């Protein structure tokens, strides 16, 4: 433990094999209490396996993990008391109404009839489903279903909430609704561990991100610091003619002193810059002197996408 921080989730050297492949290959994780922690990685990186081990659904082949201070392997009953889980597949019952779904799961959590009714009412309110409470879930939108699923995971106000790709397959509007709900969860002081393949989602929601690739954590930091790892500002240029790419790359190299990344398909060149505006002005002047038509130009911070590709690329190269 470092200083005063206490951790909701600690995992050390988790390994899990499925057939011939190691889904997890020595994964370490430390999730501080009270934050949204994003597990980011491509398909098959091992994100879901981590969540399944931490929620007591699957046993690790090696390594150990604690959730809310309890060992997932030897104290699984206690762990289950303190966690909520929303998996990739919604568990809501289409034939029942939103309220009936919540009440049913509340009863399965052994709240009495009155307490179950009260808790269902509170959660419907909180997740913006009061109006639809009496409607059967089959008439709900994708976003409403996911929110109801989140509400079910939240019945016992868990100390650690696990969300496995909570917005996969949702339209942008529903996604924003779900994000809103997740934010209100941490406002109460709970910890959220979520997996996602969407970098924008991690960027929006997570206070801290672990990038997972091939069953290991390859980076673990705040979104901002991850982005600055790859460098500062960049100049991002799209030329009109593919034939001009080589000449434009030469211009960027002369001005910025760095070899630009060139994508021939999109006719895009990217190079890091230090003196932002001066460099941009110089590049544009040079291009116009050489008569190179420019379609688009921008100065920007690297996106998480680039961080991600960079991190996972390093690994495949290594």
């Amino acid at each position, binding site marked *: 433990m470092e200083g005063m921080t206490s951790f909701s989730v600690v995992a050390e050297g988790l390994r899990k094999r499925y057939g011939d492949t190691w889904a997890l290959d020595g994964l370490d994780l430390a999730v501080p209490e009270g934050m949204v922690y994003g597990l980011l990685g491509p398909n098959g990186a091992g994100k879901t396996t981590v969540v399944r081990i931490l*929620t007591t659904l*699957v046993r690790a082949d090696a390594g150990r993990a604690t959730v809310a201070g309890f060992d997932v392997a030897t104290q699984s009953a206690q762990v289950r008391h303190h966690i909520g889980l929303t998996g990739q*597949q919604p568990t809501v*019952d289409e034939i029942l109404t939103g309220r009936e779904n919540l009440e049913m799961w509340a009863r*399965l959590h052994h709240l009495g009839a009155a307490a179950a009714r009260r808790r269902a009412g*509170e959660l419907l309110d909180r997740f913006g489903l009061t109006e639809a409470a009496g409607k059967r879930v089959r008439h709900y939108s994708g976003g409403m279903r996911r929110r109801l699923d989140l509400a079910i995971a939240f019945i016992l106000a868990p100390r650690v909430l696990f969300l496995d790709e909570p917005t996969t397959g949702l339209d942008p509007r529903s996604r924003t609704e779900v994000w809103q709900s997740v934010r209100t969860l941490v406002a109460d002081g709970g910890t959220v561990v979520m997996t996602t393949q969407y970098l924008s989602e991690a960027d929006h929601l997570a206070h801290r991100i672990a990038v997972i690739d091939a069953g290991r954590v390859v980076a673990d930091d705040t979104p901002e610091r991850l982005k600055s790892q790859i460098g500062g500002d960049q100049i991002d240029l799209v030329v009109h003619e593919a034939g001009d790419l080589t000449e434009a790359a030469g211009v960027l190299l002369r001005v910025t002193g760095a070899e630009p990344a060139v994508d021939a398909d999109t006719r895009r060149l990217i190079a890091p810059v230090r003196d932002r505006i001066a460099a941009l002005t110089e590049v544009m002047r040079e291009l116009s002197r050489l008569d190179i038509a420019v379609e688009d130009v921008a100065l920007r911070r690297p996106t998480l996408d680039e961080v991600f590709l960079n991190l996972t690329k390093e690994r495949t190269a290594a």
Partner: protein
Amino acid sequence: MTTLISPAMPRTRIERLRWTLADGWVIARSYLIHLVRNPTAILNLLFYPMVMVLLFGYVFGSAMNVSGGGDYREFLMPGMFGQTMAVGVMTTMIVVATQATRGVTDRYRSMPISQSGVVLGRSFADLVGSVLELAVLLGCGLVVGWSWHRGIGAALAAVGLLLLLRFSLIWVGIYVGLMLSPESASGAWIVLLPLTMLANTFVSPDLMPGWMGAIAEWNPLSATVAACRELFGNPGWGGGSWAAEHALTLAICWPVLITLIFLPLSARRYRRLDR
């Protein structure tokens, strides 16, 4: 602010049993709501048995002989009761397979609830469904001229044997359902339906080729059906073979044996989902 104390885990055996029963009831009740709200389920429940009774009772029945004599529809109905119980295993399999893929099983397993309550709820629900199916079928039987002739006590004993068979098959359904995708669970018809006919359900085994008749005699379903014919006082029970002579004993032994094998297997399968 939310302050919610989660209920303490049960400590004594009695408390655990109470939790298990309560969970079972909650799950069974949601199944009943499904049945009431789902028109296709009700249609299936009501119409399918009627159509089958008409089809077998009249279309095929016109060409059927009962070995030892007697009315074919009187002979048929206990067979249909038994077949309905056996085919009920499909419901269990499909529900179990669907819940496993839809994340419901994961949610149960990540919750501080009694896992045996979940399974018990499933069997409650399935038994309640089977009682309804059986009631509909008994009604259909009475309409086409079937009846019981040995008093209400024996008739109820026959119903008990039918439900015992259904109960034992729940564990087969859970075991197989946990191994299959919902699609292949639905496809289990192809195997199941012939098995329900390779029995004394529709035709007496002594009218079949010798080897086939022998298999049919020893089919667990045959034991239940023959015992029901005996208890209802319908024609076509008894016969030369040991299995046919001891139908009542076998109708109890088979389901008990199936339960003894498949209950631990399905419990083990459920626990091993964490592999």
